[in-house]
């Protein structure tokens, strides 16, 4: 079943076209990795799904609901993890999770349960009650994943979530994504990391100048193939 859908999706900023008619369907348990140079339209696509910007033409749907018409409703199904998950520095990891989870309309959840979710997301127990200003980037990304888990998100929108993480952090993050994928979460991830894309992605798409120029299933692909195809497309 289609969880994330883009239909003829186009975004233009006075004269400059960031996205030319993108068509994309991501089903439950699918991980679609968007590759491409900076400015290719990856972030634009994600922001269109989040409703932060409005499409010039075409539409985006989440669980069948048009984002333009059901902005707040569609957000019940999604979680967003940007390059840097930004939290309130003076609140602890647990307080941040609790706050965002309540905003997502989940009501009051038992704190022990939230601790368990943070643990599941890989946050060390001793960090849970520390103010977030003492966290590393990797720890904040884990709180972001915990937010997605606690919310029971059906789709995950990730914008270069692992850039700047050390290989261990990056590896932990990938494993979390695999867990979510197994639970049937639909994932759209913009990334520069070909290796991780092949690892966690079910499909990869290559974007260039606002066009989706290739869309490939990862299981038919080796790392070397992916890199070769990617570089071919990047050649002007």
């Amino acid at each position, binding site marked *: 079943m289609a969880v994330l859908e883009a239909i003829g999706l186009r975004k233009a900023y006075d004269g400059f076209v960031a996205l030319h008619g993108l068509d994309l369907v991501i089903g439950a348990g699918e991980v679609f990795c968007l590759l491409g140079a900076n400015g290719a339209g990856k972030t634009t696509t994600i922001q269109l799904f*989040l*409703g*932060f910007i409005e499409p010039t033409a075409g539409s985006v749907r989440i669980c069948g609901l048009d984002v333009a018409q059901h902005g*707040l*409703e*569609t*957000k*019940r199904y*999604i*979680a*967003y993890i*940007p390059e*840097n*998950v*930004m*939290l*309130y*520095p*003076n*609140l602890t990891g647990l*307080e941040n999770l609790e*706050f*965002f989870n*309540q*905003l*997502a*309309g989940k009501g009051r959840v038992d704190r022990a349960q939230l601790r368990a979710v943070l643990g599941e997301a890989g946050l060390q127990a001793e960090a849970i009650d520390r*103010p977030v200003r003492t966290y590393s980037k990797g720890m904040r990304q884990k709180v972001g994943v915990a937010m997605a888990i606690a*919310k029971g998100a059906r789709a995950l*929108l990730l914008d270069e979530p692992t850039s700047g993480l050390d290989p261990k952090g990056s590896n932990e993050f990938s494993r979390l994504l695999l867990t979510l994928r197994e639970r049937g979460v639909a994932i759209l991830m913009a990334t520069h990391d070909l290796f991780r894309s092949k690892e966690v992605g079910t499909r990869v798409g290559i974007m260039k100048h606002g066009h989706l120029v290739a869309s490939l299933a990862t299981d038919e692909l080796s790392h070397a193939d992916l890199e070769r195809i990617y570089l071919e497309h990047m050649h002007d």
Partner: protein
Amino acid sequence: MIRIIATKELRELARDGRFRLAGAVVLVLLITTLAFGWRLASSVAAEREAAQKAAEESWLGQGDKNPHVAAHYGKYVFKPLGTLAFLDPGVDPFLGVTLKLEAHKQNLAHDAPAQDATAIHRFGQLSAASVLQLFVPLLLIALGFAAWTGERERGTLRQLASTGVSMNHLLLGKAVGLGVALALVLVPAVGVALAMAAWLGAGADPGWLGRLGLMSVAYMLYFGAVAGIVFFASARAPSSRHALVALVGFWSVTSLVVPRVASDVAARVVTLPTPAGFAAQVRHSMENGLEGVAREERVNALSTALLARHGFEGAEAMMDEATLQGIELQAEAAFENEVLDHHVAQLAAALARQERVAQWAAVASPFLAMRAVSSSLAGTDHAHHRAFQVQAEAYRRTLVQTLNDDLARNAGDDVWKYKAGRALWEKAPVFAYTPPPVGWALAHQGVALATLAAWLLVAWALAWRSMRRIRVF
């Protein structure tokens, strides 16, 4: 949802040392100004009470003399200090306190406290009201300028937006959080003020509790308006720095520049006579009559009318000298009252025109509107001072009439030989100033209150509109 957001806002504020410090500074300022104001008020109230008692005693103990001579001797009255003057001294320190009531004259109150201000008085000028009117808005700016820009700059705004929370809830939650933070500072101060007012007692103003209640409501309108402006600026500004600069600019223009310009403009548009000039105008009319009617002519007309009223017309030859003298004095007093009423009404009209300029200026400055409402409810504005003058003048007329009546009734033929004694002085009523009721004060401040309410509505409409268009990143 609103409670959740408000709790998070408060938790953030509570953990930020800067906000704790700012709140503590304002609270300390409030308590200190309240304490100084209260100390000053309790000693001033006692002084005036004692002075009034001494004046009554000197009136009673003036010895035997002709009643009209006693009317010239006169009587001093002192403006009692309102119960809430310690909260907001308003223009009281610049207005007279002592008023001499005597025949033929309507004096203006003199001996303004500001004339012999000492260091403690000067500190007293920084009243709790000025802390509320000037510093609390600064505190609101400090707590709220980054309400939206800060969320955007930290990147938490897009995180918030991705949760599906409605922006209306977010704005309301932030507003409630700010309100509770402010209440934490104000509620202790209000408690202290209540205790102080209760201690000062209702003697001077039985309606003080109602006035204090309404004052609190007015301040809530004011703070609400300022908070709306803060949220509006924070939602519109490209960065926290811009929001802060714009808000501090707004504060200084509306709280410092506009009041200054307004009072200059008011003084230029409507010139008031100096006390000496006013006295000279009155003297001129006293000697020459009003509007082309000579003094003699008018006094005679009034005298004839008085005779007619008492059924003595045409019978002057049969009346004793004292009765005629008494009636003559009454007629003169009536003429003088006409002259005084005329000039006082002109002065009041000029003052009212000045106040109208100030009211219009309040359209550009919520601070001015708040200052007017606050001092009115504290009973320390010009209108309350005039109410005191009016009551004192009415009392003066009764007093003079009592004395002249006695002269007409009892003096016999040798008018100026007649002497009355303590029995008559005791018959004269004692002056007691009754502060106007709360409703009267409110009616005078209708425009200012409407201005405050308009600021509140417009500020929140703008805050709401700009929040709906806010950029998430």
